[in-house]
């Protein structure tokens, strides 16, 4: 006899509760599938949109070592995008469909990439601050209840740890450099501070998706916990290099063992997510143009693939 929805749900939740992984063929509530597709495709989009702000600096990277590592880094982002699109495809949505949703503006990507990268120091700060915040979030997601997502995250976190070193190394070189170079780094740290804090998402009380994602262990920590972890980790590093944190009220609280910090402007997050950020248009236009310019190549490869299949 067929089991009722409630029985299946109870069984599913018990598995999640025991820490078991849910795999592609397993029964799952429709809301779980939808929430995962939303998170994973958003994550994949973030990787390929995230190539743009740093990729901009590839032609100008100073010196062989910087140029080689920057190309390798931005290439990794493409690789992560590919991996995540494939993981999301296990839930029944194609890469093409996901891409269309990105280009039409329906799907979102990490808000932080809607901010500009006017100087070379921004390449360092993205690798160091933004990728640190990303790794803290992704290390948590590596515990996710959905198997393909958790496994993709493990591999991505491993590579991201190199990105953080690459970014830190750029900023450390500027810290040892001339007054102009130090100023370039400080300005960049200031500009990226609040956008980076916003990355872990709004406080959980304001987040619609967060509660459900926590319940089904798609994620295992609240936005606020992830943000606090980031602040505690990064503030001593910034100060150790002789730089300042943009938040003048940021201080260590002995009682709690955590750094206190000023919340970012959540209205700004809303505005930027909804399309009104400094670079939203530039980023989407760049992806759309790339997609259009490459259409003939994708069509040709598809036709050639069919011809070879018929010939075989």
């Amino acid at each position, binding site marked *: 006899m067929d089991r009722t929805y409630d029985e299946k749900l109870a069984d599913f939740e018990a598995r999640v509760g025991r820490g078991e992984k849910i795999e592609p063929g397993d029964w799952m509530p429709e809301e779980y599938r939808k929430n995962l597709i939303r998170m994973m495709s958003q994550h994949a989009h973030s990787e390929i949109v995230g190539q743009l702000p740093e990729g901009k600096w590839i032609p100008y990277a100073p010196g062989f070592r910087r140029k080689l590592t920057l*190309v390798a880094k931005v290439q990794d*982002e493409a690789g992560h995008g590919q991996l995540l699109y494939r993981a999301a495809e296990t839930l029944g949505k194609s890469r093409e469909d996901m891409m269309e949703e990105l280009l039409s503006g329906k799907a979102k990507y990490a808000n932080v990439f809607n901010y500009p990268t006017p100087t070379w120091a921004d390449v360092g700060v993205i690798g160091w601050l933004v990728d640190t915040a990303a790794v803290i979030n992704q290390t948590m997601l590596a515990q996710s209840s959905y198997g393909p997502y958790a496994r993709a995250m493990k591999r991505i976190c491993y590579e991201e740890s190199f990105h953080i070193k690459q970014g830190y190394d750029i900023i450390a070189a500027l810290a040892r450099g*001339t007054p102009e170079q130090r100023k370039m780094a400080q300005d960049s740290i200031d500009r990226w501070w609040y956008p980076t804090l916003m990355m872990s998402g709004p406080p959980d009380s304001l987040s619609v998706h967060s509660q459900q994602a926590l319940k089904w262990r798609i994620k295992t920590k609240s936005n606020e916990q992830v943000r606090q972890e980031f602040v505690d980790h990064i503030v001593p590093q910034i100060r150790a290099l002789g730089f300042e944190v943009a938040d003048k009220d940021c201080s260590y609280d002995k009682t709690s063992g955590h750094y206190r910090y000023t919340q970012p402007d959540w209205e700004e997050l809303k505005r930027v997510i909804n399309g009104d950020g400094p670079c939203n248009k530039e980023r989407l236009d760049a992806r759309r143009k790339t997609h259009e310019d490459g259409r*003939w190549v994708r069509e*040709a490869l598809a*036709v050639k693939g069919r011809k070879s299949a018929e010939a075989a």
Partner: protein
Amino acid sequence: MGIELPAGVTAEALSEFLLALADDELVLGHRDSEWTAYAPILEEDIAFSNIAQDELGHSLVWFSLCEKLTGKNPDEMAFQRPWEDFRCCRFVAYPKGDFAYTVVRQFLFDVAEQVRLIAISSSSFGPLREISQRIIREENYHVMHSQGLIERLGDATEESRRRMQSAVDVAFPQSLGIFEHLKAEEELVDAGFFPGNDALKSAWLAQVVPVLRKATLTVPVHDHKNTFAADGQSDDGGRQGKHTVHLQALVADLQSVYKLVPNAKW
């Protein structure tokens, strides 16, 4: 520092030869990296980023050998030298164009590079032998990649054929400039450093023409002895430092941050 040269070959001759190799790889590697984040599919984004790293890496290797002659390190050579002193062929400096142009240029260059490396892997000069034997494996992968794209895009759709043919029309005459003679050509051939650019060009034509023709593309060549001879004018000048504005712009980009703050380390 210091390198032992056989009798009859001057340091100027060898550094002219090495600069041509190093600058070709540097400039094409730079062009390839312009596809990072902008390729038609993620798989090609990854492939071209990889090739860019390989080419830049090869250039680094040649500059490191050059350093033993000139005393200038690879960063000084690539990031501080005036663009007029570059010795790359003009071909590698042209803008990346559409993906068809990039694929055709990459194929023509990859095979030229492969032919050149095979030739110098039996050079009379030890350091050339060692390095070419080390990097030829990567170049073989590059040829597999670009040749595969030629075969797949050449006659797939009407548009792909049209684009690939116009790319060949533009890129082929330009690519002949890879084989422009060096000032020290005779000196280096006599000493057995390499077989000379004419020999390399023949070996190259014998390999690229059949691949392009098989992909239904027309190539401006005629049969000549056991290989082909190219019709039309070769786009020379690069090896003498007579470059186009495209190299000037590329080098300005390449060096912009490096030169931003005098004497800074990055």
